[in-house]
């Protein structure tokens, strides 16, 4: 992720942090983009919030199924190279 792209994306965090929702659909990923290889396996989820749907990664070490209640938290979203900035983002975890 480019730095400025990342910087723009974090304006959304406070809008979603702490929001709760239900898992609409989920896939457990065993193959990922190179940025996320160290985080495998992780879930990718489609979550229904109160007024909208959001798709996002699940937190490390948790598995999910359709219907699970989740809440949105801040976590690291990739393993960065030593010269790169640390990238944080929104993920879903079990309530």
């Amino acid at each position: 992720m480019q730095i400025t792209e990342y910087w723009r994306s974090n304006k959304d965090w406070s809008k979603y942090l702490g929001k709760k929702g239900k898992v609409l659909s989920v896939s457990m990923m065993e193959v990922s983009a190179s940025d996320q290889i160290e985080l495998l396996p992780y879930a990718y989820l489609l979550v229904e919030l109160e007024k909208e749907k959001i798709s996002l990664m699940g937190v490390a070490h948790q598995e999910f199924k359709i219907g699970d209640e989740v809440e949105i938290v801040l976590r690291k979203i990739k393993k960065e190279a030593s010269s790169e900035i640390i990238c944080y983002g929104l993920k879903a975890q079990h309530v």
Partner: protein
Amino acid sequence: MNIKVIGSYIGQFGELWDKSLTDLIKEGVNGVLTDAQIFPSEIEAIFVANKAGGSFNEQRHLGALVSEQFSHFPPAMRVEGACASGGLAVVTAQQALLSGLYKTVLVLGVEKMTDVSSNQASAILATAASREKEYGSTFPALYAILADYHMHQYGTTREQLSSVVVKNHLHAFDNPKAQFHKKFTLEDVSNSAIVASPLRLLDCSPISDGVSAVILSSKKSNRKTQILGFGHAQDTLALQDRQELGKLVATQKAAKQAFNQASLSQKDIQAIEVHDCFSIAEILATEDLGFFAKGQAAKAIIKGQTTYGGKLVVNPSGGLKACGHPVGATGVKQIAYLSSLIEAGQFNLTLAHNVGGSGATAIVNILGRK
């Protein structure tokens, strides 16, 4: 105006280490001109379908690259709609013919994917998704989400997903241009390594190199194959913004447009080439195109309804899964393949379906002889 397919060519699909992007382009141009038996100078314009030459090959400006294969340098453009680039180029060509500006045009679809690592290829394919909203996903993960939903909502089973793959590999076995000539059992598919649950390695179409080309003309021709109608529809880029997860609305809309234009309905169609980038995509396609009721396609597929002797033949070429998926070439190959079946008298009315991303773009072409 009648638009006919007056020439078609499909190159070998596979890992073509010896062939560069330019080699494939040259092969496609020569191949289709040979099949059409027309002079190169008759080509008035060129539409190049290619998803990501800029990323795979550090080569953009493909219109120029294809145009210079002709000594008269016809005007050319590249058309991109992610994995629907091929179908989109076919539609763009038809728009040009319908405008009356041109009478004979070339559509060439090409993708050279194997010069980058498979990790890089994966990342490039993922650009068909929403960068802002779908970070952390891969392309298989997005279709896996559709599969998870479909299985939960309609009871589609693991075995039924596998049956799509088994059938397509069976079809490809007799297609010399297909990437794979290997038959699988249901267990082979169901037990292959998980990529993004529930999708496994053998549910996913491969990384491929390949070229395909057709020549479309509004002039009189002895050729039988006519494009009877087309449809082009869009939906939200990201899955999270879709109204429904159980169907691809863009496919439904595009099919409706095409059937309308052609004044035909599903029962008239005998064979279809659909966009099976993943096994679940074929199930969704045959439902959303209207050939089976929602939630019913998977049962029909495993029962043999979508192969020879069934209700209709789906993906006689082997589809994306078994014939291969050089992304930009696929939508053009569908037209080329179906037209060759029509010219050979095997089918009269057929349909081609090409999708971009997780369903944000859908193209349907109905071709046959009336």
